[in-house]
């Protein structure tokens, strides 16, 4: 508990100048134009692995990200990082993610890892499946290590897909349902980069379907997503 309190209330360390400069460069970049048509837009599909599902106590282990540019995934334009952990995650979690304790300890220093991620991301909008977890984990890490309030446009495929395919909504819920429906194989489930890859393929499917439904851009997709999100008055 003491440890948790320390993490929440400690004043964040001041970044060394080189890191501060990288962060400033990212902050100064022009924000993404959300009305850019799909054919020109770059979206970054992200997946994170964590020590557990508790947003309060668990921490970020790795980030995998894949860019979808103009509807295509450039294999070289992808990103993967493991964050150095001060405490190795529980045994059962190691089994799920397959990231061993050694690799966890050997990962990149968190501030560097996050700055690398920001450099890769640029201001491209983020996409995930069940984005809430990814968003919360990334936001907290950004605040903790970079003292950055990470406010970024996000899109959640878990809500967008049912909105695009109302007929399938009833019996397609988790990521595996949707990827199975479109024949997308996942070579290595619970590996951030591999999960980001299948999620990116799902986004490719969504973009084609969106075009058919005359949904032109990211902001229109977000409107559609919100209409399907829980709590939205039907």
């Amino acid at each position, binding site marked *: 508990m003491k440890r948790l309190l320390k993490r929440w209330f400690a004043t964040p360390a001041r970044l060394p100048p080189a890191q501060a400069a990288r962060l400033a460069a990212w902050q100064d970049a022009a924000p993404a134009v959300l009305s850019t048509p799909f054919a020109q837009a770059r979206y970054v599909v992200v997946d994170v692995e964590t020590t557990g599902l508790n947003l309060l106590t668990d921490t970020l282990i790795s980030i995998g990200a894949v860019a979808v540019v103009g*509807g*295509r995934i450039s294999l*070289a334009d992808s990103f993967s990082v493991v964050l150095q952990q001060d405490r190795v995650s529980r045994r059962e979690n190691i089994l799920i993610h397959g990231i061993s304790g050694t690799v966890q300890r050997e990962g990149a220093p968190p501030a560097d890892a996050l700055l690398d991620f920001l450099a890769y991301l640029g201001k491209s909008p983020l996409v995930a499946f069940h984005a809430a977890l990814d968003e919360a984990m990334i936001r907290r890490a950004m605040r903790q290590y970079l003292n950055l309030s990470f406010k970024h446009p996000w899109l959640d495929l878990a809500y967008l897909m049912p909105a695009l395919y109302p007929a399938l909504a009833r019996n397609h819920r988790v990521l595996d349902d949707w990827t199975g429906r479109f024949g997308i194989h996942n*070579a290595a489930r619970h590996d951030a980069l591999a999960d980001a890859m299948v999620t*990116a393929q799902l986004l*490719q*499917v969504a973009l084609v379907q969106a075009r058919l439904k005359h949904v032109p851009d990211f902001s229109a997709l977000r409107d559609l997503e919100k209409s399907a999100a829980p709590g939205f008055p039907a």
Partner: protein
Amino acid sequence: MSAIHPSELTFIIRHAPFDSMELEHVMWMLERMHLAYYAQGEIIASPEQGEATRMWVIKQGVVLGEQSVAKASDSDTWLELMEGECFPLGALLAKRRVASIYRAGSDTFCYELAAADFHTLLGMSAPFRDFCTRRIANLLEHSKHVIQAEFSHSSAEQQSLASPLSAIIRRAPVTCAPDTTVQAALEIMREQRIGSMVATDQQGHPLGILTLHDVLERVAIPQIDTAQAVINIMSTELSSLPPHALAHEAALLMARRGFRHVLVVEEHKLIGLLSEKDLFALQRVGLRQIGSTIRHADTPEVLQQAAADIRHMAHNMMAQGVAPEQLTQFISTFNDLLTARVVELECAAACPSGDPLHESICWMALGSEGRLEQTLKTDQDNAIIFKVPEGMTANQVREKLLPLARRINETLDRCGFPLCKGEIMASNPKWCLSREEWQEVFTKWVDSGAPESLLHATIFFDFRALYGAEYLVEQLRAWLTDHVRGNQRFLHQMAANSLRNRPPLGIVRDFIVGQGNTIDLKLNGITPFVDAARIFSLATGVGKTNTVQRLRASAAALRVPATEVEAWINAFLFIQMLRLRHHYEEASAQLPDGETRHLDNRIDPAQLNELDRRILKEAFRQARKVQAKLALDYQL
């Protein structure tokens, strides 16, 4: 950290050719690849998109290839590509448009590699290059489809009934003033060989039309005074269309009004004249139509036109993807028909049915015509065989036949079959012989084995009856087959002679080029197969003259496996196709300025695309194998 997930790598190296490539090259490729999604039914690549822009590797899903060349009959050739397969290798190698429509058969994800990177990778990785260019059968298939797509594309543009009239009218119309006399107008029509005459006023406005068709009813039968003004007998009810009207509108107008001509008029001025015939030329010229034209032709002029139609149709057939085997046979068949008609017309005049010679002469085709392998470049190679009627000597018959043969040779020349420079023609007294005389000549050649005799044998032993008393030719064939079959010495000499001509491949399997960096497709490519087939057939008593038939018919007796023979035949036909295409391209390049149409067989291999170049090498390699078989059989 940029990262390619190991699973992409493990996927890709499960499939050929990536499984045999160096890891470094696979990584190089992956870094340049994009993953694209195609919804079920979506078109991935089609001929309309132009030159192939990328290589696709199917990550998951099914891709269906559909024949885009509109086929009248069969809806065959469905290509089904599965996970791990690459396409369209042929089109990429050839830097051409794809021949089929590739469509996602299910939700499909494909890795894509840009064409430029594909070509870099070809240069970088030998296993990849081999995979893309290896199997000749596949490649031939690709090449054939690609060529079909190219040709059907150009012919669709040139000939569609959807073309505007401005694109079809060929020359300025021939016109006269309305007060020209009927006599003068008809003379102009005859001089210019035109079927119609339009009278216009000084501003070029059309006033009336006279067609050859009208002449009978309006001039000849009523026996009018031909000194009167032509406008008096012209049709003044004119049908006209603007130049931007489409060809099918003209066809409809003609059909509706029963006119054979439509005037193309822009701002009231006559700019062109379109006949029914011009429109027919747009559509596929029917085989039956040409055939019947030839059979009923009674003047050389009509036959000349038919010869032009044959060439035109040969192009159309190439466009429709007719294989070279059928195409050359088709050309030969129609040339036969044409030649037979020429011979028939001349013979009817020279020796009418009462004449003792009427039933005892036969016109023979030799050389490529004898083998039914004519291309658009065809010199005359012909001869006459006759039976000496009672009471006459061979010399007397010859004397009578030579002027006839000379007329036939000249008429054929006018129909587009140039006179043979080597004088191998029926009008040469040496080649207008009785059956007994032919046997003597053949015996001399077989016995002497001199270079000239062997050369003659290669031309004359491919003889075939074309018109007349065919039984004479059959007797000569039976005699020759018998005479040569067991003659190992002669066959050995023929084989040795043929092996002097080697396919132009260097030790490292690159081309050895001759004058102007070119290869003679006929001498270096076709001749080894033709020569070998002739020797095989003579050795095994096969009476056929066609190279493909000879190879197939003699293979069993020579204990050559069927697959091997088919590889030879494919190689032979591929070279034939390159030749036909080369002739076609040359002929169309020379057509605008008119007359000279000297077609050669020389191509520069550097001008060929990568695909054709590789197949040509493979074809030459097959030619070597055929020669190796000859060398083995005759211990050379």
